[in-house]
């Protein structure tokens, strides 16, 4: 761009700027003119208004004088310039009569305030709601409220003030009263045991100390909580419904029970009363909630309900028919059993309220004696005195027991209670019991056993006839006495011991020796048992006595006899022993003498003489055997058994070696014999006697004797079998008796087998034979096995 062109551009721009400045100046000129016009217009308007105001003021002055409220115009020193009639009447002063200075009317308490207010008035030109106490001309004190404004002259200089006075004494009083009431109310609210809270739209704005204490929250914590936050309704539907109704304006207050949650988490049941406070549009402005702790009452009520339930269940299930009538004879309460007893086809609940006036008449047919039933009821009802255990017999055989209890409250008759109990069973039971008792009583009285009952102190409670006879005492002499003292027992310690046993609950039998009243000695067998009461405690003992005097005497006699017998047996044995010994020595002398004679005089004696001497010697030998046998027999019975293990094989072979066996006879033992527990000497004797017996009685060319054995659980059985001459049957038993011998064998003493029997007897065994003459004999015997090495006696 060249500078020429640039100059042109700048010129153009400058031109635009100049024009713009001119334009701006023009605009400003226009604005200035507008401003001037506006201010001029305003001035004129102001002037107009002022004159209008002055006119109005004058007009107002007149009307002020006519207004109803007291109206006063005063100068700036509070001297009244003008006042209307109302003011004159109110204040009691008339400025036309006397000069009135308003400051003089002000109560001294309000002087400072008045001064301040006056200055505000001067400064601001107006004052509203000046309130003070003034004293009227008649010395009355009044509260007034004054609205005042200054009055200016044309030069806007204040020259006076005008004011309208309102008598607010009443309002003030009301205010005071209200304040007082508010104070009182606050005191009440603060100290009320009821929790009180103020809520707006459910939110708590204010709560009194009780409310805080009840719930454990501080006032601040409660603020802005809602009642719903801290509680829940016990009956939810109802209270929500009511709250809605309250908001709708249908109700102003309602009560409900709510469960409150305390700060510590516990619960509180409270009766909650909510009242709505409405504004003039009938909207709920706030709600006053009062709560009353009824946790205790709720609990008490629950308990009451529970106990009522228990009671009614109790009554329902009572084994007694119950009928409670009120004073108008209407049924208040009855139970199932009552209905059952009288076959009433209705439930106990249905009967409530039923009239009982005609009940007796209607139901009398159920009773055996209807007329006296009705009469009795009428009598009871007119007496109104408690009756118990009236017995009623019913047509169907049942027996009822009836109680009547009148109910009085503070001496006023309030109804009565009938109770019925079916006692048929217990009556019948009692009867049966009575019959049983009679039966047993007669048995006891007539039985041959003496019966005595004593208590724990041994005092006789009961005796029967037999006992009296046994003891020879009468019943009167026994009853109530100490048994030990009356009954003369030889050994008293036994009774003490037995009584002790009874106390321990033991029963047993024992014998005592007593002297009856007559002094005769008696023996009693006593069965004693403890006596129990209904609850199972021992209250004494019962003794059943059997007089065993006779048996006892017999027994004693028997014992005596046995003793005598033993003695004589013993004597006999000794005698036999002595005799056999004493007899043997002369016998031996005779034997020796006869032998000497035979040897010394063989040459002298002829054959007959020698033979006679020989025979004499045989007889002596026989005599010797006899005596030995008797000796053995007597000892077989008496000597003690010394048991030991004996091998019978040895025993038998010893026997074979030691006894005389004819040459043609063989003794064989085909089986192995057992080892037995027994007395060796006795067993040796036993086998030797039988074997010895067998070998000498064989006449056959070849004799055979066998020893056999068999065993049962408790016995050994042995058989000694021979093929000898045999024993005729008539001797089969006889041979075991002493001094019995078969045949003519001179060597047989007739004692051997009786010794066998004795030994076998001592081992509880048996001995017998079977034999045929000419064929042989089987000797059998058994021995009881001795177990545990216990000796057999």
């Amino acid at each position: 761009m060249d500078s020429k062109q640039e100059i042109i551009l700048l010129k153009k721009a400058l031109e635009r700027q100049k024009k713009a400045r001119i334009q701006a100046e023009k605009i400003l000129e226009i604005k200035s003119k507008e401003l001037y016009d506006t201010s001029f217009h305003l001035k004129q308007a102001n002037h107009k208004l002022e004159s209008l105001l002055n006119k109005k003021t004058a007009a107002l002055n007149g009307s002020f004088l006519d207004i109803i409220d007291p109206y006063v115009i005063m100068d700036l020193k509070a001297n009244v310039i003008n006042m209307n009639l109302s003011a004159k009447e109110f204040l009691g002063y008339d400025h036309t009569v006397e000069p009135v200075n308003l400051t003089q009317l002000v109560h001294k308490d309000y002087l400072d305030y008045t001064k301040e207010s006056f200055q505000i008035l001067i400064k601001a030109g107006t004052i509203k709601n000046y309130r003070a106490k003034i004293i009227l001309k008649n010395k009355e004190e009044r509260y007034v409220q004054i609205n005042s404004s200054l009055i200016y002259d044309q030069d806007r200089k204040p020259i006076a003030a005008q004011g309208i006075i309102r008598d607010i004494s009443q309002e003030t009083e009301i205010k005071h009263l209200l304040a007082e009431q508010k104070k009182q109310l606050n005191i009440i609210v603060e100290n009320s045991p009821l929790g009180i809270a103020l809520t707006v739209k459910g939110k708590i704005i204010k709560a009194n100390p009780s409310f805080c204490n009840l719930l454990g929250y501080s006032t601040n914590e409660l603020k802005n909580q809602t009642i719903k936050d801290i509680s829940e309704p016990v009956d939810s539907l109802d209270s929500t419904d009511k709250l809605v109704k309250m908001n709708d304006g249908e109700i102003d207050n309602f009560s409900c029970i709510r469960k409150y949650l305390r700060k510590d988490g516990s619960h509180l049941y409270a009766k909650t009363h909510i009242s709505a406070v409405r504004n003039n549009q009938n909207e709920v402005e706030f709600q006053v909630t009062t709560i009353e702790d009824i946790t205790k009452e709720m609990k008490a009520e629950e308990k009451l309900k529970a106990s009522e339930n228990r009671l009614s269940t109790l009554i329902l299930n009572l084994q007694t028919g119950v009928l409670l009538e009120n004073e108008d004879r209407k049924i208040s309460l009855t139970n199932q059993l009552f209905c059952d007893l009288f076959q009433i086809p209705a439930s106990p609940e249905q009967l409530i309220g039923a009239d009982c006036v005609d009940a007796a008449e209607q139901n009398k047919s159920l009773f055996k004696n209807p007329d006296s039933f009705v009469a009795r009821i009428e009598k009871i009802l007119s007496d109104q005195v408690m009756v118990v255990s009236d017995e009623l017999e019913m047509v169907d055989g049942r027996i009822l027991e009836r109680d009547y209890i009148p109910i009085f409250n503070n001496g006023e008759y309030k109804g009565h209670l009938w109770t019925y109990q079916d006692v048929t069973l217990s009556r019948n039971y009692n009867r049966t019991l009575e019959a049983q008792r009679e039966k047993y009583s007669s048995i006891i009285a007539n039985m041959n056993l003496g019966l005595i009952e004593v208590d724990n102190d041994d005092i006789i409670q009961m005796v029967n006839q037999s006992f009296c006879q046994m003891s020879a005492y009468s019943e009167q002499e026994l009853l109530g006495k100490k048994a030990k003292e009356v009954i003369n027992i030889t050994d008293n310690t036994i009774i003490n011991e037995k009584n002790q046993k009874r106390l321990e609950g033991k029963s047993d039998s024992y014998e005592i020796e007593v002297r009856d009243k007559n002094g005769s000695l008696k023996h009693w067998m006593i069965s004693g048992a403890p006596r129990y009461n209904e609850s199972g405690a021992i209250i004494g003992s019962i003794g059943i006595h059997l007089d065993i005097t006779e048996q006892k005497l017999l027994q004693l006699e028997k014992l005596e006899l046995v003793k005598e017998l033993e003695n004589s047996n013993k004597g006999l044995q000794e005698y036999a022993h002595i005799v056999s010994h004493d007899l043997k020595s002369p016998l031996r002398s005779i034997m020796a003498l006869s032998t000497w004679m035979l040897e010394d005089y063989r040459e002298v004696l002829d054959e007959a003489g020698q033979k006679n001497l020989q025979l004499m010697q045989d007889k002596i030998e026989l005599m010797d055997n006899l005596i030995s046998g008797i000796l053995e027999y007597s000892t077989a019975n008496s000597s003690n058994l010394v048991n030991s293990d004996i091998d019978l094989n040895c025993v038998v072979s010893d026997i074979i070696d030691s006894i005389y066996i004819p040459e043609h006879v063989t003794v064989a033992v085909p089986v192995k014999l057992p080892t037995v527990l027994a007395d060796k000497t006795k067993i040796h004797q036993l086998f030797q006697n039988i074997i010895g017996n067998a070998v000498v009685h064989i006449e056959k060319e070849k004799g055979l004797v066998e020893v056999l054995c068999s065993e049962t659980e408790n016995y050994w059985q042995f058989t000694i079998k021979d093929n000898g001459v045999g024993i005729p049957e008539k001797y089969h038993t006889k041979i075991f008796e002493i001094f019995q011998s078969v045949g003519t064998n001179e060597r047989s003493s007739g004692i051997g087998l009786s010794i066998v029997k004795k030994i076998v007897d001592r081992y509880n065994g048996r001995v017998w034979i079977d034999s045929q003459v000419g064929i042989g004999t089987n000797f059998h015997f058994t021995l009881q096995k001795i177990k545990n090495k216990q000796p057999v006696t």
Partner: protein
Amino acid sequence: MKGIVFTEFLEMVESEFGLAVVDAIIDECDLPSEGIYTSVGTYDFNEMVALIKSLSNNVGVDSNTLIFSFGRYLFTSLGKAHPEVIQSYNNPLGLLYSIEDHIHVHVQKLYPEAELPTFKILEKTDTSISMIYSSSRGLYRLAHGLIEKCFEHYNGSAQVSYELLKADGTEVKFDIIQNG
């Protein structure tokens, strides 16, 4: 439209593109005011539209970008003219928040005939503000420039996003989040 917008616009054109462009666009537009503007006067809005369009043609930059740049320029100019207004705020969000209730009230006192856009505040936090610009002029980009420069003035910056509630730009929602 207030004269100050025209005078400042031309000032910007002159400083950015030179007096020749100023002269050219004034000549080109055949304006009723002949391009003579005083800040205390009021002129037809269409003249501004014409000037912007003409400038756009002359310099080859689209109108909206020009308007946005002008907004940034205008904030500085207005700040020079009325520094007390900006001084009474100590942060940009406070200033933005008060446009409608404070600044425009004062503008209206000086120029009762001024036609001002409205800024309706939707939401304000310590770091953000969202508001709706509405004006029959549809100069929302101007507002955008002003807002951005405002943050710069307080040595700050902001994420300024806008959403056209009406297609012609007469109603636009601004969401402004202060950085840092």
